[in-house]
């Protein structure tokens, strides 16, 4: 029976270091991996000499059998020089020096390290009477092949999206960024999952203080496991009470590498096919990866359009309620007459109509996401078109409200970042409620609170409203609203405090 302290409050307990103390013995390993059907041990004779035996230990399924057979077992059985070694220590040394064909062979004298090696797909060779063992990497490399990103459409650009294998992802980055200054630091996160998390940056460009800050945040994570993106995201960004994203993610390797070259820090997590970039400010979430591939004029127009859509999705329902319920004089006369005609015989108040339709919109969206794609589309069609038009015809909602909510919803879909879109949806509800209570006054107060909130948050020391709220130095040419031609953007963003600001001649 589980024991809970009085009051139901649990207390943090420190992580045990090392997790498995004591000498490396076969009995200890068998105890640690008791009741594990995949734990395999096999004693082999070196050079067919029963007096010289070695115990091979591995976890079945985690190692690649061909490698074990070809690189370890075959030379041990067939190499006559190994059979002539006088004792275990010279034999181990000879194996390390090249008698075994395996690429990676490490001597281990810590039980903790050996246990985690086995879990990671290493094969352990144990010598009778010795507390030091040889650990050989023979892990399987079963992984999804590199493919085009699913959620970030690529029209012009590379199609090598990140996959679940961390080492594959780092290799993709290396192929894009061939600079030897690319640094990849690794940490293990999660008591149970022991997930590898890599920190990437370019030495000489990225602010070292920023690197240290992110690394410290990663070091501080003490959780059970990294099974979702939130496990890392929510721990490494400062604990802000905000729905707005403070770290940017992408599945596109080119975008990730562009971020590194800009002076940002990248994070890759084993098992998650995404790359994270820090710090990230509001402007980053309004830029689509396609912008850099498009003509600068087109990219500028599209960026302005996205800002307009952001304001539309945030404010349109609130403004509609404010104008229809409190400030009718703001509506052009003919439009007001049309709205009156459309709302005749609709039994509900405007604010109630808008709130109910916004909730219905969220429900439809959620239902579409959770269902398989084919059924999801059907739900959207039935919900959006059939129920929508039926509700209008039955005079349950007015067409004007339906249009307002639909326009606000569609405008929200232009956000390149789903996280930003989600935050705007939450604030849209807040503004609608304020507008229902106090009209334009409430909307303006809500918008002011939102701006104050945004102005108060930072992402790794960079104000979230950069460069709107803070100076960016002389001649700022960064892509915010206006995307200048590439040859004119000579500097990296000043807000990142890169060690080398100039990025081109």
């Amino acid at each position, binding site marked *: 029976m589980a024991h809970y302290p009085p009051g139901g409050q649990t207390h943090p307990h420190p992580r045990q270091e090392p997790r498995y103390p004591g000498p490396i013995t076969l009995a200890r390993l068998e105890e640690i991996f008791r009741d594990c059907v995949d734990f395999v041990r096999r004693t082999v004779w070196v050079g067919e000499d029963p007096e010289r035996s070695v115990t091979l230990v591995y976890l079945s399924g985690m190692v690649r059998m061909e490698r074990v057979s070809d690189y370890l077992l075959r030379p041990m059985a067939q190499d006559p020089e190994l059979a002539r070694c006088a004792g275990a220590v010279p034999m181990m040394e000879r194996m390390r020096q090249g008698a075994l064909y395996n690429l990676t062979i490490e001597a281990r004298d810590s039980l903790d390290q050996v246990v985690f090696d086995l879990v990671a797909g290493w094969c352990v060779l144990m010598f009778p009477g010795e507390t030091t063992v040889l650990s050989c990497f023979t892990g399987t490399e079963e992984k999804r092949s590199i493919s085009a990103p699913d959620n970030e459409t690529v029209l012009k650009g590379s199609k090598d999206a990140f996959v679940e294998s961390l080492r594959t992802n780092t290799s993709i980055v290396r192929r894009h960024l061939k600079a030897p200054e690319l640094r990849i630091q690794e940490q293990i996160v999660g008591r149970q999952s022991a997930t590898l998390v890599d920190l990437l940056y370019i030495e000489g460009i990225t602010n070292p203080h920023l690197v240290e800050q992110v690394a410290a945040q990663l070091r501080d994570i003490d959780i059970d496991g990294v099974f979702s993106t939130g496990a890392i995201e929510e721990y490494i960004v400062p604990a802000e009470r905000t729905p707005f994203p403070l770290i940017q993610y992408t599945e596109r390797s080119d975008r990730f590498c562009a971020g590194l070259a800009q002076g940002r820090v990248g994070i890759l997590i084993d098992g998650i096919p995404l790359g994270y970039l820090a710090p990230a400010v509001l402007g980053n979430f309004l830029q689509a990866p396609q912008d850099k591939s498009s003509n600068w004029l087109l990219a500028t127009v599209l960026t302005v359009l996205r800002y307009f859509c952001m304001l539309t999705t945030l404010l349109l329902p609130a403004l509609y309620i404010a104008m*229809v*319920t*409190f400030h*009718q*004089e703001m*509506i052009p*006369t*003919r439009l*007001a*007459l049309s*709205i*009156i005609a459309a*709302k*005749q015989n*609709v039994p509900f*108040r*405007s604010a109630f109509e808008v709130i109910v339709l916004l909730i219905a919109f969220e429900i439809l969206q959620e239902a579409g996401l959770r269902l398989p794609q084919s059924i999801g589309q059907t739900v959207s069609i039935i919900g959006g078109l059939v129920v929508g038009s039926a509700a209008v015809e039955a005079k349950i909602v007015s067409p004007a409200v339906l249009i307002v909510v639909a326009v606000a919803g569609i405008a929200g879909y232009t956000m390149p970042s789903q996280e930003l879109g989600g935050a705007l949806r939450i604030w849209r509800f807040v503004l609608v409620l304020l507008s229902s*209570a*106090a*009209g334009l*006054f*409430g909307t303006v107060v809500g918008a002011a609170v939102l701006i104050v909130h945004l102005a108060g948050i930072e992402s790794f020391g960079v104000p979230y409203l950069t460069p709107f709220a803070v100076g960016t130095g002389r001649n700022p040419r960064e892509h915010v609203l206006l995307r200048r031609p590439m040859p004119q953007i000579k500097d990296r963003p000043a807000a990142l405090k890169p060690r080398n600001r100039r990025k081109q001649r």
Partner: protein
Amino acid sequence: MKRTVLLVLLLMLLLTGCRRYSGVLPYAREIEDMELMRTLGVDDAGEAGVVVTASGGTSQEETEVVSGQAGAISAAVLELQGEGSSYLYFGHVTQLLLGEGLAKRGVIPSLDYVLRDVEMRLETAVYLVRGGTAEQAIEAAADDGSATDRLEALAADAALTANSMPRTVKDVLAELDRQSASFVPAVLADDGLTAAGYGILKDGVLVGWAEGDAALGVNLIFGKVDADVVEVEAPDGTTAVLRVVGAATSVRPVWDGDTLTGFRVHCKVDANLAEGSAMPDEATLTALEEELARTEADRMAQALELSRALDADYLGLRHSAAFRKPWRKEVLLGTSSMEGLTLEASAQVVIQRSYHADG
């Protein structure tokens, strides 16, 4: 946590419906519960005060006309509210009609009502009903559409007819305050609300009318001419049709030493040959230009003569002159009287082109 709960409880007070707490919030009123009034008419009712008439709707639907009488405009408007089932909303009133009788008693209270009322706008266009009442005009227009649509069409065509121009409550109030005189477009109380020149106000009271050529002269002085058609006699005895497509007027003060003796109004007119043969020879052209200049100068002179005769600077000559000579501002704006001043009008015409295919 406690602070959050306290804040939520305080906010919930606003939802209790108790006016003591909710009074800080603006008052909500659903748009579908409203009847949008678009034209407001005010007439004199003698000892009984004023009659207020309002109409809403568009020509596509039935126009609703309501009327109320009380000692003051506010009270009459309140009486109107009791007539209909919906709340009458005056935030969309774009036209204000004032009866002739009321204008003769004074327009200031009506304009002041627009200025002070929270729903009405200063951008509301104002018209005088010549020879009738605003109620008659609104009722007549309602039989054939709505007064609002008719007046909006009149305002849109004003520059084409060149004998009317829209004026807002703000314009008139500002001019009455600045120069003690102003002018307001007039309409007849027929079903078409026909334009009938301008009513001239002095100290807020209707003192005269500018009609016919005088009204055209007013438009010339204000440069509100887009397509006035003028027939002039050519040297060969035929009639030439000229279309006036633009006018720019300057006002110069005339001094005798430091004494202001009058104003010289000069108008540069652009015209095109609208009908007839191709562009005539130079001599004929000059003759046509001189003839049109005489006509336009005469029109302006009639408008100026009204200003002198009524002793009302309704054209704002003193202010126009003060813009040109700001160092004489004190003398020019020291008084608004036009008595004893010589008012001269001259025009210079340029015929730019002919509408004939050969130019």
